[in-house]
């Protein structure tokens, strides 16, 4: 059986050396499993924070060693063995660079989000996997972001799959790694002054 699916790997990023290498173990957890229920609630609560652009609260949900990574999708022949542009990404972030992005939105001069976009993150297809570490879970989800700006422009959409690594800490469950598989090779949105 061949598959068109090629997983994203932090180690293929020049900036991903610090990222956790924890992988999923086994099949997805039953939907009634408590770990799945908590992960499901975590990603839904996070989606509301992102819709509301409450980025300071969102930043508190990220671990210090987070790797927030969205490689560039490229169209390649089936069997080419890769479907992202080597050594390049849209987002390839650590906590510091994410904190600068959030700080910028908090200034009065981030024109691209003033007036703010109307955002809706539709998050679905959530499944959770245990890992070899009882304090870490891998969570898959699909996200469709609707973004509307002003009154004359058409809205823009981004569709992506996400693979998250959630980690239990003294501050609760935090996001330690996010791999974003964007579904377009050419993004149809004026910029990515948003988070997925």
């Amino acid at each position: 059986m061949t598959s068109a699916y090629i997983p994203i790997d932090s180690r293929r990023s020049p900036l991903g050396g610090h990222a956790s290498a924890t992988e999923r173990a086994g099949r997805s957890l039953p939907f009634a499993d408590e770990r799945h229920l908590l992960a499901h609630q975590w990603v839904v609560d996070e989606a509301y924070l992102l819709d509301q652009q409450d980025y300071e609260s969102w930043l508190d949900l990220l671990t210090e060693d987070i790797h927030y990574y969205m490689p560039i999708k490229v169209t390649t022949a089936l069997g080419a063995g890769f479907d992202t542009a080597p050594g390049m990404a849209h987002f390839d972030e650590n906590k510091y660079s994410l904190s600068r992005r959030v700080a910028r939105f908090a200034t009065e001069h981030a024109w691209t989000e003033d007036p703010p976009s109307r955002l809706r993150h539709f998050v679905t297809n959530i499944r959770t996997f245990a890992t070899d570490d009882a304090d870490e879970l891998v969570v898959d989800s699909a996200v469709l972001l609707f973004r509307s700006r002003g009154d004359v422009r058409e809205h823009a959409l981004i569709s992506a799959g996400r693979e998250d690594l959630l980690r239990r800490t003294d501050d609760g469950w935090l996001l330690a790694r996010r791999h974003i598989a964007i579904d377009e090779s050419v993004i149809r949105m004026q910029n990515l002054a948003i988070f997925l």
Partner: protein
Amino acid sequence: MSELELTLDDVRRGMIPAHIYNDREIFELEKERLFGRSWQFVAHESEVPQSGDYVVRRVLEDSFIISRDDQGEVRAMFNMCLHRGMQVCRAEMGNATHFRCPYHGWSYRNDGRLVGLPFHREAYGGEAGFSRKGQTLLPSPSLGTYNGMIFISLDPEAPPLDEFLGDFAFYLDYYTKQSPSGIELRGPQRWRIKANWKIGAENFAGDMYHTPQTHMSVVEIGLFREPKAERRKDGSTYWAGKGGGTTYKLPEGTFEERLRYVGYPDAMIDRMRATWSADQCAVVGDSGFMISAASLFPNLSFVHNWPRVEDSDDVLPFISIRSWQPISENETEVVSWFAVDKEAPEDFKAKSYKAYLMCFGSTGMFEQDDVENWVSLTSTAAGSMARRLRLNSRMGMLADGSAVVEPLSGDEFAGPGVAHVGYGEYNQRHLLDEWANHLERPVTKSAGVEFGATKVEVGS
């Protein structure tokens, strides 16, 4: 005078009819008279390092395969099967010895030669009916390279690339030849913005005036060290050959000290010293200017900047190359690469890449605010009021056309072309003058291309 002549006249006076940023008829003319014959950057040789490597790039609606053949030569071939016009390559990048058309199975070597034609004998009567020998995918009418940058032109009569670049090549070296090995490109990021393609090209060519306002936020968060971005007015703009750009004025110091100031490590500075001409070094070391953004006519831009990428006082320089690919009169595909010197230390490459991502490209914090402005401008330019309004693009000129500040002398600015200190729209005017020169000149129809058929003398 025709309406077009009046429009071009206004543009040449530095009074821009606002509708040129969103006008279907103007765009049709641009396609034919400008993009039909200008040099277009499509790829860098570092993107196809091995035999068989290819990338597929567009020039407006035309798709080209840029491949390195088995002899190591780089080719640009029109991505259309000679038989029924199907794309022979539907991936964006990869490695292949052949491209086989999925429709009827015609296949081509990675140098473009037609090598496979199913049922050649049965269907065509062999060579007698269809001469397969010597047939290739249509090569790009013109192809040229400079520092590994691959340019193509749809015009077979295009002037040689070197001649076209002229003195802009002097400045191109700062971005693309910091060592004998030159640059490597990564990416590109591609995204579509509802903005006319000219706006970005003009902005990168010479708009130092927007930096303190548009990019106030990146200074406030400490991403950009130059205080309040006000330093821009101490910088200079230059125009040379078919391009121009902006610079920052550097603090006092030697060539080495000034390059250290923007974050280059000593090993890279030594290579720049050895690679650049005396005049190229003098722009930095004696004149004290560091290149920033630039545009090469019509739609290729460059940026060099040096932000903070960590919680420290250190800055890290990065380079981006981008093409503003027109989709329509009100939509542009931005094709943006990160570029870095091949000989740079790996640690520098990683941090420079980080600097690029934080500042420019699809997620860049500078670029986000630029695009917001350009989208707004474009949508406003569609209406009938925009047909009345002439945008004043005369900064740097008094009413009688004389200069607000005199050009820098050779002692003050060691580079070729004409340079001025401070804010001015000299380069935007140069760019649009070139644009007007192209738009007023009709094209001669290209001859059709036939292949395979042997001419039959009728009646013989």
